[in-house]
């Protein structure tokens, strides 16, 4: 019944018969695939067809070099990895203690991870978060599309909106429905399209200018999108979430608060350069005195390195757009 299977074979044989000066003619028109249709018919998710998932900067040797150099520099100027294991209820009091008694501030604060059951809004509103973050400082909030959507309320809150500017919205996409990061619970009956992504608000407090503050921020290094790779599955938090923050801000004081239980099976790992507060973090070794000493040793910001300055994308001088 199906003639199609024999069709390409025939064409091979046909071409072989002509032997010399035989050639494989190119199609007259450019071909475009429709991955949405393909998903409907085969169940292969659209994101599986993205060709640079494993190495987003494939084909760009300069960017690859930049990423390598930055990774090395960040590793060389990192505090020891710290974990602070405590119950979700103890987070706000502990952080208040850090702010008022220990006088600790961070330049980069990340809140949340890729789980549904997070208590982000209560944490954000229960804290004087502007006192926990220095100025300028950067706040990354990760959660389900639903949870992030609820944060819009914060913008109506004058106190919040004056202190923090939402600057980018990032997205993390799991590779398939078997992924540990598949946001299955976010799909209630109301949802019109099956949800396949996690969202992140990147907020800035204080003033930074992208053209002149290269000692504080490196803009346009990462993109607002990342797709899960095999290597991200080993931890409760894909390393990409940390890397975006590390690549953007040159500050070395970084805090990650995870207001959710993430389970015992996928551990919350510690990471050099970060203090990680979570009920399930593997280490519980945070000590404010030792941390301060660490930061004094490595410096509050990464030093400027010419090699990186030459490679990183910069704003053109006074001529935008083309």
């Amino acid at each position, binding site marked *: 019944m*199906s*003639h*199609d299977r024999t*069709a390409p074979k025939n*064409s*091979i044989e046909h071409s072989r018969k002509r*032997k010399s000066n*035989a*050639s*494989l*003619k*190119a*199609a*007259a028109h*450019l*071909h475009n*695939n429709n*991955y*949405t*249709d393909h*998903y*409907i*018919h085969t169940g292969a*998710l659209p994101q599986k067809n*993205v*060709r*640079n998932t494993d190495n*987003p900067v494939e*084909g*760009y*040797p*300069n960017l690859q070099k930049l990423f390598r150099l930055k990774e090395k520099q960040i590793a060389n100027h990192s505090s020891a990895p710290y974990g602070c294991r405590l119950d979700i209820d103890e987070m706000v009091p502990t952080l208040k203690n850090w702010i008022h008694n220990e006088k600790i501030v961070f330049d980069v604060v990340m809140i949340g991870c890729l789980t549904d059951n997070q208590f982000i809004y209560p944490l954000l509103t229960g804290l004087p978060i502007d006192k926990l973050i220095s100025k300028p400082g950067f706040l990354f909030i990760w959660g389900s*599309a639903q949870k992030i959507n609820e944060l*819009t309320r914060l913008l109506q809150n004058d106190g919040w909106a004056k202190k923090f500017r*939402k*600057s*980018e919205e*990032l*997205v993390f996409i799991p590779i398939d429905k078997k992924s540990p990061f598949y946001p299955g619970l976010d799909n209630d*009956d109301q*949802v*019109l*399209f*099956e*949800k*396949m*992504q996690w969202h992140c608000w990147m907020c*800035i407090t204080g003033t930074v200018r992208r053209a002149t503050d290269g000692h504080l921020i490196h*803009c*346009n290094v990462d*993109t*607002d*999108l990342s797709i899960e790779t095999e290597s991200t599955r080993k931890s409760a938090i894909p390393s990409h979430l940390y890397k975006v923050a590390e690549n*953007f801000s040159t500050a070395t004081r970084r805090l990650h608060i995870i207001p959710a*239980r993430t*389970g*015992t099976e996928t551990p919350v790992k510690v990471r050099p350069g970060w203090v990680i507060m979570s009920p*399930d973090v593997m280490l519980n070794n945070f000590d404010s005195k030792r941390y301060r000493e660490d930061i004094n040793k490595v410096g509050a910001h990464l030093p400027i390195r010419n090699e990186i300055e030459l490679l990183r*994308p910069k704003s053109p001088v006074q001529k935008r*757009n083309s």
Partner: protein
Amino acid sequence: MNMQLITYLIENHAALLNPPISGDLANIYILFASTSKHESAGMKQQEAKLAAFWKELKDIADLCPGCFIFASTGYGSAALSSRDVTVEYIDIQALRMIRDSMISTPAEVARPVRPLGRESSEELALSDRLLSVLDSDAAATPNKRVLAKLEHFLSVKPASYRLGHERAQKFTPHSKFIPICGNRSHTNALASIASIAGNRVLSLDWNQLAGADQSTPGLSRCVQSKIHHIPNLKPQTDKTLGDCSYLDTCHKLSTCRYMHYLQYVPESLVQSVAARSRELNDAESDSKSICLYTRNLCCSVASKSVLPAQWIQCDVRKFDFSVLGQFSVVVADPAWNIRMNLPYGTCNDSELTDLPLELLQREGVLFLWVTGRAIEVGKESLRKWGYEVCNQISWVKTNQLGRTIVTGRTGHWLNHSKEQLLVGLKGQPEWLNRQCDVDLIVSGSRETSRKPDELYEMIERMVGPHARKLEIFGRDHNTRPGWFTIGNQLTGDSLCEPDVQRKYRQFLHTQRTSYGCSSVAA
């Protein structure tokens, strides 16, 4: 119902699920058989008894869905065979409830069963203590098994969902799909044998391809089944620089020193793929014409023709929306007034949020394209118009090579590889086919601000081909059968619905007269 089995499972669930047994069905059966006087039999009988045992377990599972979680090597396959099944989880609470309810009715008397692995009372005390530690931890932290069970319950979809998916498959024509080859060595091998002229690949020489097949095995077969991107090398090309950020949209092909590529697909492959999809579509057009599952669609969905494309060129901000009537779906791609010099007129946020969109839908779905800061303005507007944001679709923009766009300072702080589309839901429409598609579109970027056509198909799957659909701020390339398009960059107008024609004439008339009056007054 095998009471003895239930009791046995309740008493030994921990030992059965943990190593060395690890829930293996065959081993559970052997252990269970050894406790309950069954004598060992020949292999063949054993096999039959295992199947019977498996059936007994399934009976219990049918009585109380979810009391077991089974797994096999081919997880998710419909028919689990008794040979490769493992029991991943046993809900002893549920089993206890079954036992209690059965015991009260004296149908069967449970025989005493010897529990597994309990030799000395001293060891028991130690193991109990260890187990209690585990239990308390499990109570405090969400345990993977409990979570898996909960997720299993929550992910059970109604039959309408499955039927909807199946129908979507039947109604979506097969498009030509050709995978893209990602093998760098193929790219390099092809660079030297392709005959290129005028920035197009003309052909590949068979003899040379056969020769290259020696050093790159599988090349000629791959060439005939996948899309390849062949380097378009010019005298000035410097391979060490890597790829051009603009690739096929580069305007300086004759001077640019970065790498550019040309798509190559053999004509024969395109034709065979086209023939195959034509065949599939023909086969499906038969099943479509006798569509029995018409829920949420027009009942003559298969035979009724779709209205031709309709459009009106107008200034959306001054247009009377009541001319248009009601729509199931509205799509809007406004030119948000963000600080970017887009090559067409932009309008202010407030002009946009003041549009009387509430006139267009009593209930329905509104799709709103947003960028950057406009995400929050858009969400606010949706709420103001009476919609609830129920999805945020990401369009992952890809380039010629099927890669995401990572260069070129496309965003202010980070580069932008995606665009966002807010989906607002008004009322509680019961005529929607939900969750046929995912909240992602992976598609190539085209001219500035042109959005992917995949969205139209997703919407048509959701509301059917005959529902009224409106696009606001559309351009000529957006007009489409079954759709109504309005926007100031359209060419003229084209209407076929008589009531809209009448109301539109009236609108034009009143506009002309009021314009006439004002000019007289002036």
